[in-house]
């Protein structure tokens, strides 16, 4: 089962490396998925102004802290990229990648804490469509945090050995997207009352 990379993979008629091009196409399809979900939410919000009372029960401090954590993680993945591309220091890139994963874990722990307290107070997904949207949007986002974290973890070991260094950039682009989705979710779900 020898698999050899086809010539096609290394061609670049556009001048954009194949991996980066594919990542942007992937993200544009992700944007429409999240975009669809958020447009649905916004349309409902405009028609149901009383959802503001429900939104008041979200934990803005926890959400704000998580925003800070995710933004920091985005900085870490940029530093990993810088270490791999400019400094050619694979060990340093590896460490920054794991710092990013550490932030992802903190984010998920805080999110789990939020879910637990909210469910204990009776704000379940069945309680009201606001909470249904809240759980759906944040859970899909959390799924992306897990997927991004796993991708970074898998790539980090190759990077440490000096292989597939371009994947630091690719996972980094993805990670920025995960971050950006949260930047939309936080004000729309937590802050808007």
């Amino acid at each position, binding site marked *: 089962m020898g698999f050899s990379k086809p010539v096609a993979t290394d061609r670049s*008629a556009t001048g954009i490396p194949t991996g980066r091009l594919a990542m942007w196409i*992937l993200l544009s*399809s992700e944007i429409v998925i999240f975009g669809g979900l958020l447009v649905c939410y916004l349309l409902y919000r405009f028609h149901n102004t009383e959802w503001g009372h429900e939104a008041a029960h979200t934990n803005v401090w926890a959400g704000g802290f998580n925003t800070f954590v995710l933004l920091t993680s985005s900085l870490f993945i940029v530093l990993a990229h810088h270490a791999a591309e400019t400094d050619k220091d694979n060990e340093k890139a590896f460490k920054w990648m794991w710092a990013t994963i550490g932030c992802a874990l903190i984010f998920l722990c805080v999110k789990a804490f939020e879910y637990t307290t909210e469910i204990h107070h009776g704000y379940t997904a069945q309680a009201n469509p606001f909470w249904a949207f809240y759980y759906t949007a944040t859970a899909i986002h959390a799924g992306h945090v897990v997927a991004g974290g796993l991708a970074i973890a898998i790539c980090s070991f190759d990077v440490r050995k000096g292989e597939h260094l371009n994947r630091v950039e690719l996972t980094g682009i993805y990670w920025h997207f995960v971050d950006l989705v949260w930047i939309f979710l936080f004000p729309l779900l937590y802050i808007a009352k």
Partner: protein
Amino acid sequence: MSDHHHHELTFSEKFLFPTDHKYIGLQYLWTSLFMGAVGGFMAYVFRMQLAWPGESVPLFGVVTPQNYNALLTNHATIMIFWVAMPMLIAAFGNILIPLMIGCDDMVFPRLNRLSYQIFFVSTVVLFLSFLVPGGGFGGSWTSYPPLSARAEYSLTPWGSSLWVLAVALEIVAFLVGGINFMTTTMNSRAPGMKMMDIPMVIWMINLAVVLFMFSVGPLVAGAIMLLLDQQLGTSFYIPSGGGDPVLFQHLFWFFGHPEVYVLLLPTFGFMAEVITTLARKKLFAYKTILFSAFMTGILSMIVWAHHQFIAGIDPRMANIFSITTILISIPLAIIYLAYIWTFYGGSIKYELPMMWASAFLVIFLVGGLTGLFLGSSALDIYFHDNTFVVAHFHYTLMPITFFGGFTAITYWYPKIFGRKMLHGLGVIHFWGTVIPFNGIFIPLFMLGLAGQHRKIYDYTHFPDLMQPGFQQLREFATISLVVLALFQLLFVYSMVMSMKTGEVAGNDPWGGTTLEWQCPSPPPHGNFATLPTVYRGPYEYSVPGSDKDVLPQNMPSKA
């Protein structure tokens, strides 16, 4: 890289877990043909019930109302998601893209393999949905809530969720495959192949993939919300819980209508290749066709609410959607006329693909023109939900899927298997398909105009619809369907027999210009002995001043 061009593939690398684009394309092709038989069988069963209500259907038995609903729903679902998409986009996209842009494979062969594997799992999940308690989902392929959102309404507690899951997996398979298609086309073209040198079919498949990607996203979100309504008891679409069922209709048709063009564009691509090659003519107005296809794609995303004219949307909005719906016929008419103009002055060879291409142009025209009636929000009040609509969309989707599919299969069969398809059998199959096709759906136009509603299990309960002439038309349609189905057995026979007894094709049986005709038939792993360089556009037939009939894309200019 020279060693891997001559590397012999093992059985598993060819047929079980291939990464070679041609074998993945064939996996999609065989699966779609098999699913076509399944979907066709379902249509046979429920049409038999309509023609002879309550009687036992041969090979099935007595059809219960639950059976009827599940068969109707899954017939539509299978024909669109498991036949049309895999055949027109995945099978031919996989086979043709690397061959026609002159490279050795897709950019991500293993992602390509994953795409088929997800698709295969989705097929298994769909079949499982028939076997669970309560049976398969019966809420129509549109799966409108609240009916689809609560087990106590749909009576299929497991079937409806497995159905949603199967469709979602199928969508994921196509998104994964689509990333590969687009990246390959953008980045891996042969040196010298500029944007306007890309063969039209490759443009069309890629436009279809882009259109699919941008229209399906909101439905992915919508499907997750539907699954949560079904399984967790949330109320996204349940009015009593604060939700809105019309939201799902918007999400569904925001995808559902562009989907028609997702399927149509690849078939338009097949037409461009077949008509130019077999009429020995340059494609008339390449750029106009291309930009009209862009316009079609853009307009198709703002027509969706014409499916909801009587769903309680604002009548002012209905007016706007009427206008955009009728507007979309302009770019399509431009493409159509460009194709007809391509025939003009050509030296037309009525080989099998050309017969199918011509039949497509004629039959699809009926589908397109009846669409104008339905696009008008006033007329739609009468036409909505009757069998005029059913006949209309079968006059579009059957030519797109099957006539388009047969065009592509008969045209590229010699490339894929090294031999041409048997002409005599093909001609019999052609007429045995085209004539009964009209026999099925012309009666449905008539019944629809007479007011016959669709999705009804047994018309004997509706005296208005049980007048003698009506029932005869239903029987005529059903008999036509059986005849059409029997002729498809001939096609299967012809496909198998042609592999052994067809005329040996050689590299270029039709005298084509595009790159897939410049490599051996069937192409080896790696496709080309030397990867080609491109010097000109794809349709240089009968060039004035040239001593040759065709100028292949990879032939260097003398000057």
